């Protein structure tokens, strides 16, 4: 089986991630965000919508602002392609507490499943060339399980391209994810130094 042929279900890999997340800030966008929210609705989730590509920039700001707290970003390949320079910016700023996951499924899934201009981008190679030395590609759940602890604990910045299959999409509620109430709760939790656990954590409906 070629590396390209082997892909994980995004929900499976996010479910594994959710099992390891405790007090981390998780910044997510579009399809990853809807799946992540369906898995674990927590105050320390932050959603990046409206300016596609900027989830990692939000995450960089948060990582610089809260150097003692791990910041995880759940990006998409279409989103990252809209802001590839972010990898160079992150490498230069070098936040030790930033872990950047990119779900690569070769499509603008949230925009109708339209293919990307090119499906074979070597994001690990791009990240490495940008100056992020801890860069990797993961295409099976066993490898993800083996590496996740290190990615969440050890000094970074880390970059991991997750090879995933397309959809199905979880139910989207952008109004909720985009709401001022969520941002205010997120801000308050951070200012008060709270380590919120999940409000809800359930398997995603298939």
């Amino acid at each position: 089986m070629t590396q390209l042929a082997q892909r994980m279900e995004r929900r499976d890999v996010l479910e594994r991630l959710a099992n390891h997340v405790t007090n981390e800030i998780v910044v997510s966008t579009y399809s990853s965000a809807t799946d992540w929210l369906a898995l674990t609705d927590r105050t320390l989730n932050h959603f990046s919508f409206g300016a596609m590509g900027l989830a990692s920039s939000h995450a960089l700001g948060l990582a610089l602002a809260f150097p003692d707290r791990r910041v995880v970003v759940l990006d998409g390949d279409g989103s990252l392609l809209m802001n590839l320079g972010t990898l160079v910016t992150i490498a230069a700023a070098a936040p030790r507490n930033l872990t950047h996951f990119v779900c690569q499924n070769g499509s603008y899934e949230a925009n109708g499943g339209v293919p990307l201009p090119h499906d074979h981008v070597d994001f690990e190679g791009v990240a490495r060339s940008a100056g992020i030395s801890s860069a990797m590609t993961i295409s099976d759940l066993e490898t993800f399980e083996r590496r996740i602890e290190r990615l969440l604990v050890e000094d970074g910045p880390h970059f991991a391209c997750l090879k995933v299959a397309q959809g199905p999409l979880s139910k989207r509620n952008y109004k909720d994810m985009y709401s001022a109430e969520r941002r205010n709760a997120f801000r308050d939790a951070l200012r008060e130094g709270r380590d919120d656990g999940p409000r809800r954590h359930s398997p995603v409906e298939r």
Partner: protein
Amino acid sequence: MTMTNSQAATGSLNAGGPSGLSGQKVISAIESANISYVLSVPDLHTSAGLLQPMANQPGLRIVRVCKEDECFGIAAGLSFASKRALILIQYTGLLYAANAIRAISVEQQMPTCIMVGLLGKEPGIPPNQSGRMGVRFVEPLLQTMGIRHHLIETDDDIGIIAPEVEAAYADPHPVAFLIGRRPA
């Protein structure tokens, strides 16, 4: 006023002074507003007078980004820890980043302080009367998005910077300072 060739070459008409703009005074105003991060794509208009001296200020951390819209995400992230950032870009970058500004600064009401170099704007001429088409677009764009903005063209204009930064963070909203003359 007619600019001589030697003045044009040295930019001496842009020097700080009675009718000029002092980069150091602008930086002092920024520091007095408790800004600790400067997020920037270099701009010929402000690089020598602002960005380069800012890099030597111990209280300011420069984050060099690749494209202007990154600045708005980074500034938003920093604001969750009440860390204040100045976004220092050229007007072309402002035009490029319009969607990020719309989403993050306007719709999500994140505190955002933008300093925009109006490269090529003629000193003493209002931005909307500049011979540069892109410069003429700046104020209408900001007005359309409801963003407060101030022309900073002489030392007399600098006093508005610190209170407007304070206001942007006290009641979260974006504010833009338009650098109309090359700081010396």
